């Protein structure tokens, strides 16, 4: 028997989507990053940002936009790239178990020589590999554009930002995996994962508004990896480890949950 059949099937069935998402992320980067060279370097962009209310620029993370690294962090890693990878993480994460169960595929698969543990782990691996691909691919595009767009990002920081972006996406998809393992329902899986991403973002945005609410950063995975800008200052290793550890914990919990319950059709 060949190894990891479920993993290979997941990759085989989603490579077209993977290419589509890669192109989408590339388009986004090509749209945003070259703009910095044209009006970011001479202070024009900073002038626009300064004209906006301070609360707003802080909330959307545009307060560090005066440097190339801050610009790439604010426009892509902390905003559009985060949104896009979150969407794909929710879709893939809820498809992995919940949609498979709703469509009857899980029942068929588990009626064969595939154990539940194997199923969850191979699906988690397929999620990880696809999200890593998107993260690394985006990182490479940023690296390629770094010089021409005059961003001046320290190349090593791109690795940290990639690990942060991918970590957040993998955490989101792991939550979808876990909710799918618990309920077998796509609505719950995507609901739980999307809620995590939204609250994670909202908490850190609100925390920026007032010192009284800074504690919200403690429960925001977004803040764990992005509070210290990975592109500008290097990634916060502790926060990064926490995000990845939590994602791994969700995968482990998914295994334990799915092993325990009845599969519904």
């Amino acid at each position: 028997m060949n190894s990891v059949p479920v993993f290979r099937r997941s990759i085989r069935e989603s490579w077209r989507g993977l290419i589509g998402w890669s192109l989408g992320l590339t388009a986004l980067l090509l749209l945003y990053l070259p703009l910095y060279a044209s009006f970011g370097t001479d202070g024009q962009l900073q002038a626009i940002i300064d004209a906006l209310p301070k609360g707003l620029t802080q909330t959307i993370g545009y307060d560090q936009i005066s440097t190339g690294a801050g610009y790439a962090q604010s426009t892509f890693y902390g905003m559009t790239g985060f949104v896009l990878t979150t969407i794909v993480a929710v879709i893939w994460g809820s498809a992995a178990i919940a949609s498979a169960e709703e469509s009857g595929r899980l029942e068929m698969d588990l009626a064969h020589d595939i154990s539940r543990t194997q199923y969850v782990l191979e699906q988690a691996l397929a999620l990880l590999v696809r999200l890593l691909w998107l993260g690394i691919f985006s990182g490479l595009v940023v690296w390629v554009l770094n010089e021409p767009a005059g961003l001046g990002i320290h190349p090593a920081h791109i690795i940290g930002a990639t690990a942060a972006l991918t970590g957040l996406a993998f955490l989101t998809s792991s939550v979808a995996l876990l909710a799918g393992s618990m309920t077998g329902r796509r609505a719950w899986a995507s609901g739980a994962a999307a809620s995590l991403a939204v609250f994670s973002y909202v908490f850190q945005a609100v925390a920026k508004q007032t010192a009284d609410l800074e504690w919200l950063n403690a429960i925001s995975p977004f803040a764990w990896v992005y509070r210290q800008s990975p592109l500008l200052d290097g990634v916060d290793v502790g926060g990064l480890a926490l995000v990845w550890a939590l994602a791994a914990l969700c995968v482990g919990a998914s295994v334990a949950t799915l092993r325990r319950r009845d599969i519904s059709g």
Partner: protein
Amino acid sequence: MRSKDQPGGRIVNVAIEISNLHKKYGHHTAIHDLDLRVTAGTVFGLIGPNGAGKTTTLRMLLDIIRPTSGTARVLGQDPRTAGATLRRRIGYVPGDLRLENRVTGHRLLSFYAEVSGAVTPETIRNLADRLGVDLSRAVRTLSKGNKQKLGLIQAFMHTPELLILDEPTSGLDPLVQRELLRMVREAKQAGQTVLLSSHMLSEIQQAADQVAVLSDGHVVAEGNVASLRLGSIRRVRARLATTDADEVRARFAGAGGSNALGIVSGANGVQVSGTVEGAIDPIVKTLAQFDVCELTVEEPDLEESVLRLYGPPTDATRRSRSAGRYADRGRHE
């Protein structure tokens, strides 16, 4: 596979043995105290109306769902603990087969072939030709019947020791249904065991050696197909040479058998007709108290027997069903 010593000293291989199996969903009990034994190398039919618990029972054998209590042994192993390798020895068609993927039939089958081990492309092709399904089309674009054919191919292709087929003919046209029943017979000849469920009695009648009738989570009757037909239900029609229908009614009421019988007086005497469940003797003895002009006692077909056994799911019928079950078992074993 497990060997069992029979009282007569005969050794019988048991492919599936279920004892005291219960399955509860919250307060609802889907399976009550189920006992079943499927002898290896036979075709066993599980019949019952929708919601009787057939699918629940079969899914417990695959460890898709877990029993609340009781034990099941499949090919000598507990499905709960035997792991995925046991399922390699089983071919399973789910009752509610939905294939919604973009992949082609070929792709779908080669995935399961890869997981289940040694299957040649030729085997898949032969089965596809036999059932008449186009494997190059995306499975989600196929009709229900064609999806069902893919379900059957993935169950049969690795020649498993045990085939568990949940409503296997569902969606198939009559010609393909016949082909499937042929495949089931061939599987039996090849030494495979087949457990199939159906709410269509005719196909069970054609295919199965042994039958269990499931209703409302209970086995209400079991035995070989022939003995089940000879079971406790008979259609009785008689004409008695008397004009006093009330007297006939009173005598039958005394014998405890009037409920199921229609007793009407006509021009040529009193007509007694209806379906009798349980012992025939009191009916015959009561009839014999009159001059019997005509008498027909028919064995109904399986369909009618089972319909009769299901009855409306009230406490009273459940009690009478379970009484009938023991009477039935006593007679056939």
